[in-house]
């Protein structure tokens, strides 16, 4: 069952008359960690929404292994191994940490393994275990981000989509979150991460795409991009 590749070709998508993505192509091989970076409004979130089925593309193909993502309803995607940690985390603030994780294990295949997945997530985030009965909305931003990632991991996904995991967090907490991302991918999970924090994200991914105004303007390995003068001046503060 291992080994589905996520591949997007010629994706066009938008909201109403507004087009946010123009012929975007992207590939994520199994076990890879890939970043999508770019300025605010470049279409990064739209790209993730297309992959997780929340937005249907107007043209182009999106596949995960053999599955055509555009042909499936959004709620079927966790079942084929795609988990999406949305922008702003979108936890259920009035439910406890454990209940949030329980919603993450909603699909039948996940319910069967609920206890072991819970142990796994609590092992990865001991903090969540301490606060399992606390209402998610009352935790700190970093803890909430952990809970959101934990919730996505509950359904044993093959690929994890992360949307701006560092947004709104203190620098120290950002470093912790990226350390976690590294740990998750070290366990063999494929990761696609969308970020504005280019410097940090290039340290944890193998490759990255640069998105600007809805188009891929550059791609390459982290090392290539980190040394690219254009990227350095645009995103890395020029040094």
């Amino acid at each position, binding site marked *: 069952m291992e080994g589905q590749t996520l591949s997007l070709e010629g994706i066009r998508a938008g909201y109403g008359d507004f087009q946010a993505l123009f012929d975007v192509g992207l590939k994520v091989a199994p076990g890879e960690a890939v970043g999508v970076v770019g300025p605010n409004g470049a279409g990064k979130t739209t790209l993730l929404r297309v992959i*997780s*089925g*929340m937005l249907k593309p107007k043209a182009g193909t999106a596949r995960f292994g053999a599955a055509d993502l555009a042909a499936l*309803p*959004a*709620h*079927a*995607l*966790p*079942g084929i191994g795609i*988990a*999406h940690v*949305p922008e702003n985390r*979108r936890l*259920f*603030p*009035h*439910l406890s940490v454990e*209940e*949030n994780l*329980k*919603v*993450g*294990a*909603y*699909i039948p295949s*996940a*319910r069967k393994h609920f206890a072991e997945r819970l142990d796994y997530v609590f092992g990865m985030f001991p903090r969540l275990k301490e606060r399992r009965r606390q209402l998610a909305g009352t935790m700190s931003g970093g803890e909430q981000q952990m809970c959101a990632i934990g*919730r*996505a991991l509950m*359904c044993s996904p093959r690929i994890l989509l992360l949307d701006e995991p560092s947004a709104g967090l203190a620098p120290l907490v950002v470093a912790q979150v990226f350390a976690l991302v590294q740990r998750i991918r070290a366990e063999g999970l494929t990761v696609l991460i969308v970020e504005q924090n280019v410097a940090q994200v290039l340290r944890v991914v193998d490759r990255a795409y640069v998105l600007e105004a809805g188009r891929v303007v550059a791609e390459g390995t982290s090392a290539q991009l980190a040394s690219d003068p254009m990227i350095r001046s645009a995103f890395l503060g020029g040094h």
Partner: protein
Amino acid sequence: MDPFLLEAIVNGILLGGVFALPVLGLNLVFGVVDVVWLCYAELVMVGMYCVWFLYTQAGWPLIAAFAACLPVVAGLGLLLHQLVVRPLLSSPPITQVLATGGVLFILQGGAMLIFGTDFRSLGVEMPPMEVGEIFVSGTKLIAFVAALVGAGLLWTFLKFTYVGTAIRAIARDREVMPLMGVDPRRIYLVASAIGGTLAGLAACLLVVQLDVHPFIGLSFGPITFMICVMGGLGNMLGGFLAAFLMGVIISTGGFWWNTEMSYVVAFACFIVVMFARPRGLFAR
């Protein structure tokens, strides 16, 4: 304390138990689907006719009639959702409420057409029980206990099952649900079926206390909405508590004045509460 006042308060609490079920049902549907079922009390009426027919006309045992009533009204809730609410999910709230208001007329008219306008009674009554200084109606006490059991079962379902947890989650954020593999349309169906079941249970408890007639929905429908709003639309716990509060207001109002004035007082209390706490007494 004056034993008559005490009796009124106790009766109010018992009355609140009966209000609690439709309030929970309405709040559940509103919280999940975001639509007010204006015809909720008429669903209860259909359930009451169902029990009455099966027990007095078809000769079923009362328990069997109760057992049949629940799925019938649950099915009606599903039908209501599929045929009327679902096509209007993206319409303005007023349109949705009015459409269920149309169903109110349909059910009322249907009941008149089939059963006429006579008051129908089950003819079962238990002797009142003497507890300390006061008398309590046995049927009311049983209905109260059954209502609490129903509410407890609902709470257990919402608290401990996957679907129940998803129902509580969807009330806060419906767009994010598919990311967890939850199909909102299925959750809507489940909520509508449970909303119908609660109306069916309320029907079983009411039909032993009250005669059923086509307009009975109008007699307790409005008060049910008031209670929901007082507790905060969609807030199950708030609605549950407000049901008892309203029950006691009505019952003690009847002690001080008369039944009609007690309803006037209850409605006036509701309006005042709305001005003091526009999102409900127990809004967070």
